[in-house]
């Protein structure tokens, strides 16, 4: 399996991205292998979110090629989609549902089975034990973020996590816990691409960083 571990899970060649008439970045190459952590850095407006949206297929790149496990993504669209989990700025959490209902529906929409016990444990672990029966509208910003992040803790088949500013609005304890979950996923042979403006210590053997300021136009 040596070559399987060497094959990049997701790689991009000569990506460029434009938003409206503004070209954000061009000529970007990146690759993330199993067991790797990749941070996308860059100032505000350099295209971090746009890059993540391109990598998960929500947006179309202006130019460049995207490969999933060394195959062009349009040939392996189903594997690509099944293999990744994207959490954006917006939590995809419904105000009218309780945290558990939210978790159950978001897993079902993704097409994944959710073990109820595991989901409950994930919510308790992430610090929502006293809020299990409360409609999400009554939770704070940070707690809503936790509801969204609980999906990462309750076992997903996705090998690659794409996390856009996952640490926003979280307190120190939740940041540490999420960092632990990311590290565990990476050590278990998964991969994570994330963006952040906060210095967060994630304990993994290999990490890489792409700075979009270097590719700015």
């Amino acid at each position, binding site marked *: 399996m040596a070559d399987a571990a060497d094959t990049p899970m997701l790689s991009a060649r000569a990506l460029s991205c434009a938003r409206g008439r503004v070209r954000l970045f061009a000529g970007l190459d990146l690759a993330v292998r199993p067991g790797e952590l990749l941070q996308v850095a860059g100032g505000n407006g350099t295209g971090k979110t746009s890059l993540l949206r391109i990598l998960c297929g929500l947006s179309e790149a202006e130019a460049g090629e995207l490969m999933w496990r060394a195959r062009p993504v349009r040939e392996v669209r189903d594997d690509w989609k099944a293999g990744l989990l994207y959490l954006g700025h917006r939590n995809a959490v419904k105000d009218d549902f309780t945290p558990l209902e939210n978790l159950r529906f978001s897993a079902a*929409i993704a097409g994944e089975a959710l073990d109820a016990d595991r989901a409950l444990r994930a919510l308790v672990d992430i610090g929502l034990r006293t809020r299990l029966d409360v*409609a999400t509208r009554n939770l704070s910003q940070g707690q809503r973020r936790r509801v969204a992040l609980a999906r990462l803790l309750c076992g997903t088949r996705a090998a690659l996590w794409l996390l856009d500013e996952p640490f926003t609005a979280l307190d120190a304890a939740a940041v540490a816990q999420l960092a632990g979950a990311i590290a565990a996923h990476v050590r278990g042979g998964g991969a994570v691409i994330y963006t952040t403006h906060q210095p967060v210590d994630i304990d993994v053997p290999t990490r890489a960083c792409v700075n979009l300021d270097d590719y700015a136009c």
Partner: protein
Amino acid sequence: MLSVFATVLRRDLLLAWRRRADVLTALGFFLLVTSLFPLGVGPEPEQLAQIAAGVMWVAALLATLLSVTRLFESDEADGTLEQMLLSVEPLAVIVLAKVCAYWLLTGLPLVLIAPLIALQFSLSPQETGIVCATLLIGTPTLSLLGAVGAALTLGLRGGGALIALLVLPLYVPVLIFGAGAVDRWRAGLDVDGNFALLGACLLVSLAVAPLASAAALRIAQD
């Protein structure tokens, strides 16, 4: 595929149950418009019976047009739509489930309340039956076509006006076949043709609208 359909359907129904007030707007509009007509036009039974089908159909069409704009709005706003696009399940199936839930919440109540409205217009039992049957086949078509408009105008300012422009031309045939059925029956003509055409409209939109909406949603999220 079936399970994601069932889940999204259940989810949308549950959401609607938690915000009941939103759901009643379309029904309230329908009731209001159809109840004002007898007051405005006057109490002559013959005259009322003549305009009944047209008024009920136009009211149902406008009620759909007013409420369908919100079909994808809340999922767009909170990011759920992104997750739907990223799902391994076909987006068209998810869209179809959303439209089904929408029809059960706004279209079906109109059909169920229609017999009561028909009383105000002094329609005979047979005429009432025909109006209800045309609405039963016609309102799902209105919901499906409306979903395409809602997907195309998602995230646009002034989307409401645009959706009317986009969707109304598609609504017109449904309106003509639907409202025309009672007129034909009153004239002693055969109404099978109207029902066949309404059914054909429903089948075509059932086949095309979810795919078209899904494609429009992908573009809207880019």
